[in-house]
Every structure is written in structure tokens, then in C-alpha cells.
């Protein structure tokens, strides 16, 4: 069997095993309701971080509007279940497609912008989406869309997360993914190598948006409500922080930092006055000590485990 396929299958088997263990622990209540909630939140955050990593980490397009796509997914899927009475799977799919279409429509013109200009444009887009939702009475406006059934279970969140990770991992490890990475590395050279940079930027943006939509759908169907305040630019920053902290262009990095940050946030909620102060200090210190993120652009593998402590020495060649 091919090495790649073998690794995929081991990965999948590992995921299923992990699921079984976690599920078992939840059933016998060793993982209580609070941690159960946070585990679902971790799954959702992983989807968000990994999908933004495709846009920002791998393709190098600086986006701070990810919460906007999440909002589209959250609302659209909620409308499907609450207003139209459609099944949850259809709702999630609709949320993903809606976010993807919007991502495509928005990405096409804006991705011509570069660097900080793109950043502010995407931030603006996220806000435009949110303000638009805020002004649609059909979905509750400022009060949010209420009465959403809790269809999201640990099982849903977990397998959506696994699907996202595998989708993006496989995409990155293909010629299409390499085209995206080449844009990050050197856009001029990428064009000179025949890469249609616009097409791939928009593609990455669209795929990223679609998964953000999935995350949004899971989110609103877990917390009973879709509310504009959940999707501000601060949320986009949170997601970006996960990506950068984990390492731009490292999927395992995004996963690790999504887990870490969600966990820290949950743990700090008992110290409400100090929560944000500690969180912000932690962020600053972590960035100063690991400016390239926890894993840089490398992937964590069992093989690399031993070397990890060695630090971010550039040049230890490592194939991903």
C-alpha cells in the first residue's frame, strides 16, 4: 500500500479511536457537561482555525473577516432548521454553501489587494456581513435568532472537525495546494511558474469560507441562538490568533493552539477580572518566545516529537 494512503488510514483510525474513548468517558460522566461543552467548542474552533490557516497560513492571504463567514453559516443553517424545518445535515450543508458562495463573490474582487490592505478589506467585509445581519428583522436583528434546537452533538462536531482536517490536509498535499503555497512564498514567481494566482486565492478563500460556515452551523445549533455579537471582528482576531500561535501553515499547529486557547479561556473564566489581562499577557509572551508559532510551518508528527524541543531552527529539512 502507498505510504500516503497508509498514513491517512492510520490517522482516520486514530481519530475514530479518540472519538470512541471520549464518547465513552462522556457516557459514564467522567467528562462532565462543562468539559463536554468545551470539547465541542474545541472541535468548532479547530474547524475555524484550520480553515483560516488554508487562507492565511498556506496561501498567505491575510484575512481578518473569518467570523463573517462563520456568521453566514450560523444564520443560514439556523434559518433552515428553525424557519424551514429542514434536517440538520441539510442545514449545515446549506450554511457551508452559502458561506462559500459569499466567499467566492467577495474574494474575487478583493483578493487583488495585498497585505495590510487585504487585511482591512476582509475586516470590513466581516463587519459588513454582521451589520447586514443586524438589520434583518427576519433573523432577529440585534436580538439574534432564537429558539434554535440543539442538534449539534459531540459526534457531529467531532466528525465535522475530522472531515475538515482531512479535506484541507489532502488539498494542501496536492498540486492545487502547492499552487496555493507558492503564492504565499512568492507571488511573482508563482505566476511565472504558470499558477493562476487569482484562481487559487479565490479557491482557498472559498474553501476556507465554506468550512467557517460549517463551524457557524455547528455553533448556532449548539448554543440555541445565533447572535450578531458572537461574530464581531474580535472573533476574527481570536481565530487569527489560533492560526498564528499554532504556526502559519501548520495544520497540527492550528489544532494544538485551538485546543490550548479554548482550554485557557475556559480555565480562566473563574477569574473574570483577571481573565483578559492574563490572556493578553500570555499572548504577548508566547509570541515573543515563539514568533513563528508553536510549530512554525512544520507538522507535528511522532517522528518530529523528539526534535520539537530543539526550537525553531530553520533549515532542519523536514518533509511534510
Amino acid at each position, binding site marked *: 500500500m502507498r505510504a500516503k494512503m497508509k498514513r491517512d488510514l492510520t490517522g482516520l483510525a486514530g481519530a475514530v479511536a479518540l472519538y470512541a474513548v471520549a464518547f465513552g468517558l462522556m457516557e459514564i460522566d467522567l467528562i462532565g457537561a462543562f468539559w463536554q461543552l468545551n470539547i465541542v467548542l474545541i472541535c468548532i474552533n479547530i474547524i475555524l482555525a484550520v480553515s483560516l490557516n488554508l487562507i492565511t497560513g498556506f496561501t498567505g492571504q491575510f484575512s481578518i473577516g473569518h467570523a463573517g463567514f462563520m456568521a453566514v453559516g450560523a444564520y443560514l443553517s439556523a434559518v433552515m432548521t428553525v424557519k424551514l424545518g429542514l434536517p440538520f445535515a441539510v442545514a449545515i450543508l446549506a450554511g457551508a454553501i452559502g458561506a462559500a458562495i459569499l466567499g467566492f463573490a467577495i474574494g474575487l474582487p478583493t483578493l487583488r489587494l495585498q497585505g495590510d490592505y487585504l487585511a482591512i478589506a476582509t475586516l470590513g467585509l466581516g463587519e459588513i456581513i454582521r451589520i447586514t445581519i443586524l438589520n434583518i428583522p427576519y433573523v432577529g436583528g440585534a436580538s439574534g435568532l432564537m429558539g434554535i434546537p440543539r442538534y449539534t452533538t459531540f459526534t457531529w462536531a467531532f466528525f465535522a472537525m475530522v472531515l475538515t482536517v482531512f479535506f484541507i490536509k489532502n488539498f494542501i498535499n*496536492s498540486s492545487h495546494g502547492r*499552487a496555493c503555497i507558492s503564492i504565499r512564498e*512568492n507571488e511573482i514567481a508563482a505566476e*511565472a511558474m504558470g*499558477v493562476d494566482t487569482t484562481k487559487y486565492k479565490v479557491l482557498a478563500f472559498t474553501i476556507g469560507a465554506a468550512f467557517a460556515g460549517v463551524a457557524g452551523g455547528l455553533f448556532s445549533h449548539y448554543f440555541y441562538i445565533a447572535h450578531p455579537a458572537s461574530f464581531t471582528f474580535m472573533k476574527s482576531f481570536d481565530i487569527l490568533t489560533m492560526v498564528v500561535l499554532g504556526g502559519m501553515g501548520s495544520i497540527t499547529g492550528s489544532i494544538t493552539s485551538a485546543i490550548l486557547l479554548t482550554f485557557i479561556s475556559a480555565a480562566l473564566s473563574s477569574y473574570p477580572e483577571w481573565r483578559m489581562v492574563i490572556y493578553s499577557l500570555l499572548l504577548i509572551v508566547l509570541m515573543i518566545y515563539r514568533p513563528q508559532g508553536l510549530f512554525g510551518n512544520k507538522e507535528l508528527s511522532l517522528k518530529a516529537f523528539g526534535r520539537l524541543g530543539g526550537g525553531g531552527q530553520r533549515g532542519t529539512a523536514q518533509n511534510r
Partner: protein
Amino acid sequence: MALLKIAKLTKEFGGLKAVSNFNMEINRGELIGLIGPNGAGKTTAFNLITGVYEPTSGQMDFDGKSLIGLKPYQVTQRGIARTFQNIRLFADLSVLDNVKIAYHFHVKYGVAESVLRMGRYYPEEDEIEAKALECLKMFKLDDRRDEIARNLPYGEQRRLEIARALAAQPQLLLLDEPAAGMNPQETHELMEMIRWIRDELKLTILLIEHDMSLVMGVCERIYVLDYGSIIAEGTPAEIRSNPQVIEAYLGEEVN
């Protein structure tokens, strides 16, 4: 029929005519040099051909079809690949990945196939890998396949850039000062390699270079550019003794 035919090409920046009334014809299989003083417009000419800049006026036909208005990636897909005066590798990627990207537009499998790892994904990936390795071997870079490009010494980076351009499987290869920063010994090796590539791969090559030993050594025909216009064209021997070229560029006869 000429492979590349350029007529009356002009490019202005503000008021400055970087390239003016530029004419050139290259036939299949030729190895042509483009020389001229600094700032004469050589790199600009490359940028016009490859679609980085849009010409102010003029025509360019490649293989019978106009290049005007094409984006750089479309030009590459038509069969023109280039290297850059200031090296532009994918600096944080491995040597192998640098080359693999160049095969990108020949790939036929779609996004779905790559995500599901089905259909043409595996066969084509294997093929790309094999071809990329073959290409690296040609440039004696195969033992460096996993090295990160930015860690290569300068000379090897130059070679990798040429390898990558070739991996795009072009008909016409444009090299912008491939020997810059190389010592005479390395330049000599490069010269051999350029000749070998042309013969082995049946390529057409147009190169810019200031190192006269290389230009005079490999080029069959040379164009001389000054202040944006062609001031001379001919065989190395003709160019070497052209008084206008000596005056503007060479300074004295080169042997």
C-alpha cells in the same frame, strides 16, 4: 516561422522610454544573447514578454499567436518560462517542492480527486515526483531534494531557479543574468550546462548577461540594447568588433 517575433515594442514609465521600438526575431532552437549597458531595458523587455508589464505599444507573437494582454501565468502556459535577475525561489519550501510547483499547470486531477485521493491523483503525483527528480538530477541537485531553498548557497539557488523554469516544460527559456554572483569557474560550468540543456531538450533560449565570456561563448546571435533601442545585432564576432557596441558597452574589444 519565427518562434518569437517582436515588433515595435515600446514601454514607457512616466516619461521615460525604458524600451522603445524594440524588434526581435528568434527561431526555434536558437540560443540568443541580449546585452547592453545597465538600465538599457533588458529586464524590462523580459517583463514585457512575460506579461509582467503591459507594453505601451507594439506587437509580440509567440508561435504565431499574440502575447499582448496575457497574464504572466498565461504566458508561461503558452510555453515561455523565465528566471529572475534577483533570485525568486519559494524560499521556505524544499528544493523538490520548488520544482514540483512548476508542473502545476500540466496536472489534470481536480480538487475533488485530490481531497478524496482518488482517480488521477496518485498516478499523476507519482509522475510529477519522478519528473521533478529527473529534472533535479539534470542540475545535480537531486541530493539536495529535501533542503529548504533559502539554505542553498547562491550558486545552487541560481541552478535551482533554472531547473524550476525548465520543469514548466517551456519551448522558450528566458534567463536574466544567470551568472551574476558566480566566479569565473562557476560561470564556466554554467555555460556548459546551458549549452547542454539547449541540445538535450531542444529548447530555444534567450539570455541576458554581463559576463562576456559566457555570452560570447554560447550565444549564436546577440542583440545589443541601449537606451531602450536595439543598436546592433549579429554573431558574437560581429558584435565584438562593432564600434557602436564598444563605445556604449564593451569599452574595448573583448577577446
